[in-house]
């Protein structure tokens, strides 16, 4: 693919992502504040992000796809156990999860 085409893709993608944020900013500026609407949109956001996270962890398109579902699920489980065992410590959850995945990946 030529350099010009690549630049076209990158610049186009920047604009195509920015447009959602722009619409969002306009909505907040010009829509009358309606708590029910914002509450619904919050729920929609959480549902979309839940779907995204599940996809990233269990239907990955990144290099994580090289690891089996069992390995990824085990690492996620260990992360949550560490997170709650240390009173919702993000550091404990992150270290527990990433370290267990690395170890499992190394011995796989």
């Amino acid at each position, binding site marked *: 693919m030529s350099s010009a085409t690549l630049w076209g893709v990158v610049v186009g993608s920047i604009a195509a992502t920015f447009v959602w944020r722009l619409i969002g900013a306009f909505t*907040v500026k010009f829509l009358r504040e309606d708590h029910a609407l914002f509450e619904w949109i919050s729920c929609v956001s959480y549902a979309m*992000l839940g779907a995204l996270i599940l996809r990233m962890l269990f239907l990955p398109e990144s290099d994580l796809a090289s690891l089996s579902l069992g390995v990824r699920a085990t690492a996620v489980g260990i992360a949550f156990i560490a997170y709650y065992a240390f009173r919702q410590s993000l550091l404990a959850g992150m270290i527990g999860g990433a370290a267990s995945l690395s170890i499992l990946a190394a011995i796989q």
Partner: protein
Amino acid sequence: MIWGLPGQLVMVELASTGKGVVAAVFACSLANARFLPMVVSFLPQIANRSFTLVQLIIYAQLLSINSWAMCQRQFPTIEPAHRLFYYLVFATSILLAAAAGTLIGYHAAVALPNALVLGLIFSSPLFFALVLSSTARNAHRLALLLGCLMVPGLHAIFPSIDLLIAGAIGGSVAYCLRKRVERE
């Protein structure tokens, strides 16, 4: 600037397989459409209509899942007057960290053992999962769960708009049931 990993992945994949500029850009846009509800649900917590449009656009552009999730978690413990400052400092810090991480990661990825690289890649979605699942609101937890449950089937049928459909249906169901689940 594109500021959304799934969109970046899709863009790179389609661009590198020669599917054309329009297809890559359109797919990236769909993948990053989640920023619309994220911005709309988040901005009222730090700003309102009295702010200029330029200010709102800047705050919107700084938003990522990391800052969205962290602020949703932390804002109940922060006075409303300080929330904007917290968000701006947090979002700018992680933006700088992301830029530095990109530079370091680009060079280090080939030098580090593969298992370590996989652990680092894993840490990003793991962070989202940990932070978002700790939300205090049961309605939001329900929405998260419904999104998770719906996406495997939707991904098989509508791979490019599965997130949008899961969000719309899962979010709407959670919204309708919000009073019922909060009472429990």
